[in-house]
């Protein structure tokens, strides 16, 4: 079993209502040092056996077609070190 992590973040130039809300709330809680916040999703996939290049390619395809929507989001795929 290997863990592959897919991070999906809203595109830079698009609205991110959730990140914006967090940003708005932070100073009210006394957190002053944060300039910007974006909120996205993190998927942890447990993949059978070793992660070969083929497997990774497959995960990338899943990230592109299912886990993210390319017009509004970017994704990254990486194998999590043990």
């Amino acid at each position: 079993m290997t863990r592959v992590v897919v991070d999906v973040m809203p595109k830079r130039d698009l609205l991110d209502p959730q990140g914006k809300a967090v940003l708005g709330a932070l100073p009210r809680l006394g957190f002053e040092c944060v300039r910007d916040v974006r909120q996205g999703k993190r998927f942890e996939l447990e993949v059978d056996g070793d992660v070969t290049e083929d497997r990774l390619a497959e995960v990338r395809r899943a990230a592109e077609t299912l886990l993210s929507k390319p017009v509004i989001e970017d994704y990254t795929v990486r194998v999590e070190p043990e």
Partner: protein
Amino acid sequence: MRVGVVTFPGSLDDVDACRAIRLAGGDDVPLWHGDESLRDVDAVVLPGGFSYGDYLRCGAIARFAPVMNAVVAAAQSGLPVLGICNGFQILCESLLLPGALIRNDSRRFVCRDQRVRIERASTAWTAQYTAGEEVTLVLKNGEGGYVANSSTLEELEREGQVVARYLGPNPNGSMHEIAGICNGRGNVVGLMPHPEHAADDLCGAGTDGFRFFTSVLHAALSA
């Protein structure tokens, strides 16, 4: 006149869409997400709800249902398709319509009677309205903020593909106050507010939404 209504796991307003079709004088035909066939319908409604819980992105998983292969193919060859709320999201996920719908800027689910302006009357679903007409429909969603990149927005405006726009304060942060759009041909319409909940005076927000259904019945008749 047969109008199909697709039930995905988690579809909720399918019963309401069926009722509106019946009230309009059509035959409602239930379609199942797992079937490939559209059962010879003359039009299709993708109803509101929370397909697959909408946990990932609204409509993201429903888009891969077997029935969607048939819907996409039929839509491309001109079959009238109306996606309401979750159905609109599914149409965007399926790339039958451009752009996407994201979390309301209020970050809350909102259910309210919503004034909208019908911007385009030349679609299969709005033919019985006049462009510029102001009507009341029901808005109820958590992820109804329409977004698209600027070139897409420009094109939608230029080609008159904005079908309906919110009036009054923007209820969810939609760009250009967009409440509904259509494809270039006008047979595929996605609409965030619910016309099927404005089709019965007693149990809805008036009857302003009724003509979405009579429009398509008429269009199908004359086709």
